[in-house]
């Protein structure tokens, strides 16, 4: 047995015939880490959480927590004996108890835990004031989700599992809640695995992110690395931030694109001279410069309040996103030309 906090080895998770995750490995070394699992809907993220919680058995592999075997192909500790809390995506509150009773339901477990919550404190942090005496059918979906989260926290679990905890919560509150919850989890060193399909959320909350695509964990790394060093075309496509363009390797520090010209930077992975590669171009890689000779036509503009994302079309029909602040000097209309500062420099040249 290892000294890791959580160890999932070569595990297969099965929800249905089509919905499987194979050969899954995940190690959490330190107590208190927050892990986010990212992936498209229906890929089996929820199944992973349910299996860790013990609601489903695993046909292959092993899951151990704090050195204790929870699940393997011949062992299965019942969910009530695992001290793993799972906060469901849908409303799973006990319908005949009030919100406050629901939250307190978990309180009796683990009296001697390293941390302790007062229901009142959680109610404040999660903005549930005034709902204490209501019944679950009288609160909104987003409120129910937060109550469920509070209930899970009250049970002082060794491992907290969150299934899309912010999916029904409106944008403005979401940011504050993410902040508050991260603070609570970090302060009390509650190890958490959270499932989401929102990469911004994952990047903000997580110490480590796992990207699950086509039945396997494609990449497991820090959010920074996932963004800047995606390890496969699938991950790039899934994150859907940058695009891949055809380019040719010129030398150890540059590639050439038919329209954008020479692009300099450091290769993440070396390629021999002359190799045709696909280069990742992220929205923040290009800089706006009206005086530049390189002028591209704008085909779309997304106004996001603090910034614009322009989509530019190159001569060879690549559609390139460019991110600029929403300052008037950056204001251009669709169909106009948009200048790009040359030569282009990208810190990390990610090529496939």
């Amino acid at each position, binding site marked *: 047995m290892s000294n890791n906090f959580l160890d999932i080895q070569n595990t297969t998770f099965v929800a249905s015939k089509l919905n499987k995750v194979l050969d899954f490995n995940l190690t959490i070394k330190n107590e208190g880490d927050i892990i986010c699992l990212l992936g498209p809907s229906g890929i089996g993220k929820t199944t992973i959480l*349910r299996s860790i919680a013990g609601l489903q058995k695993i046909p292959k592999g092993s899951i151990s927590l704090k050195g204790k075997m929870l699940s393997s192909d011949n062992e299965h500790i019942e*969910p*009530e*004996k695992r001290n793993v809390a799972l906060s469901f995506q*849908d409303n*799973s*509150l006990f319908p005949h108890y009030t919100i406050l009773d629901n939250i307190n339901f978990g309180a009796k*477990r683990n009296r001697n835990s390293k941390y302790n919550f007062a229901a009142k404190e959680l109610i404040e942090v999660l903005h549930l004031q005034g709902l204490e005496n209501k019944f679950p059918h009288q609160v909104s979906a987003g409120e129910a989700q937060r109550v469920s989260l509070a209930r899970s926290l009250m*049970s002082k679990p060794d491992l907290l599992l969150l299934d899309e905890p912010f999916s029904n919560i409106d944008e403005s509150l979401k940011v504050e809640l993410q902040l508050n919850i991260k603070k609570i989890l970090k302060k009390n060193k509650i190890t958490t695995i959270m499932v989401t399909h929102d990469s911004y959320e994952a990047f903000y909350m997580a110490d480590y992110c796992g990207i699950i695509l086509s039945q396997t964990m494609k990449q497991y790394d820090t959010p920074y690395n996932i963004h800047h060093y995606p390890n496969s075309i699938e991950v790039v496509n899934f994150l859907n931030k940058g695009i891949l363009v055809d380019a040719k390797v010129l030398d150890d520090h540059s590639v050439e694109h038919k329209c954008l010209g020479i692009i300099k930077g450091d290769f993440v992975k070396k390629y021999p001279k002359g190799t045709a590669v696909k280069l990742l171009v992220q929205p923040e890689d290009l800089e706006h410069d009206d005086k530049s000779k390189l002028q591209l036509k704008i085909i779309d503009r997304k106004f996001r309040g603090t910034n614009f994302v322009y989509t530019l079309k190159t001569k060879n029909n690549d559609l390139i996103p460019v991110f600029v602040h929403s300052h008037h000097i950056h204001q251009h209309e669709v169909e106009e030309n948009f200048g790009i500062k040359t030569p282009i420099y990208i810190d990390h040249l990610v090529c496939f």
Partner: protein
Amino acid sequence: MIKNINYWYISSLLVSLLVALPILTVFSSFFGSTSEYYFLLKNTFLINYISNTSIILFGVLSLTLIFGVLSAYFVSFYNFPGVNFFKWALILSFAVPAYIYAYSLTAFFENFGTLFTLLKWIFGEGDYNRYIPKFDGMMGAIISMSFSLFGYVYVLTRASFYYQSNNLIEVSKNLGFSAKESFFKIILPSARPAIVAGLSLVAMECVSDFGTVEFFSVSTLTTGIYNSWLSYDDLNTANQLSFILLLIILVLFFTENYSRGGAKYHQPSEGYKPIPKIDLHANKSLFPIIFCSSLFFLSFIFPTLQMAYWTFKFPKYFQDINLWSLNFNTLSLVIIASFTLLIFSFLINYGNRISKSKFLNYLSLFSISGYAIPGVILALAFITFFSWLSDFLTLSFGILSMKKIFIGSILGLVLAYFIRFYSLAFNGIKSNYLKINQSIDESSYLLGYTKLRTVRKIHLPYLKNSIMLIGILIAIEIIKELPITLILRPFNFDTFATKAYAYASQDLLEAAALPSLFLIFWAGLLIFITSKYILSEK
């Protein structure tokens, strides 16, 4: 874990087998000796039985359709004096079983009956008997059943009007329909599944009826079955007749299930608002008032008053009838049977829930057919089966005859009630159990609660009310139940129903009044307690 699953499988299987016993028995005895059946077919009696059953069925369906839909329409869409009273008063008709209605009808209209006495009291001596209409035979049976069964159509139609119509009215107004057009083109058609479901229930009760047709000496399939057993001691013929009746029932059963499936889509949505009713004034409210009050009077007040009148007119039966033992017998039967039913239904439901087995779900679907089987058939099939089993065991293993244990015993009676009402209990609990999401159980486990504690802290508190209501509904049914009790009861053991029947079949209607009145009282009391639930769901 594997041990656990086996346990649930076995108990589910046993209960399903038990409940399926009557059908299996009837089917196997039908195929056992075909020749006698052909002989029977040639016999004109059969044609007579079937045509009588059909005529009664047609009459009862027509009357209950008019009574049920019209009254539901009035109380759902209009405001008139007394509407809130009629809304629930009309379901009191459930407290008067058809056979007791028949006793009242006869007591009132017979020669020198209550009507005669009334006329004499008002107008003095006279030869009134010649002019008083006689409601007996087929006519009497149709009237008695219609007044005691129209409640099914009323309750289901009203629920459908009540829950679905508001949005529909708004939508149809928005589309430019007038109020009248929207009623005929939208509301009535959308209530059709509910109306058909109500009528199928009426039809099932009607063809299963034994007490009423027996009292009016109308030969139908049920009386034919009963008589071939009682008079000719011929269980085989009884079972073969049962087969024919079961085929009819089967058609009705599927009609009901099918219609109910359609009615399901009309469950109230979250944004449900009560219908704004149309106020009726003066003249316009006259017809609804007269209609509803006559219906209430005729279906409940009339039989109750008639029975009360005779009870106190012939006080000597207070001494003849051991009231204490009647009350004790009826109520203890009700309590034992209801508790057994509720406990088993809950356990099987729980087993289905935690094992999540599709097989168990199908099995329990199969085992809910018991409610569709007429009491007479059920009781006779019960006797047939246990006689066979006992003979078989005695012959093969030399085990002492165990007929006495099951036939003519409280145990047998409770078992038969169990078979008859299991679907009521099982489905009632199931529909409420399904409202508890699986993720709620899982949350409870994840918070460290064991399966048993989850049942105690989550399931039972949540289901408490509905289990109680279902128990009361079963109790009402058992109090009114006649043929099963009559055939399977221990010697000298009487309930209100069998006592009333016994006196009535000896032409001692005045003596039948007292047990009948008690029966109406208990059933009425339980309906009163559960009226809110009956009006909202069912």
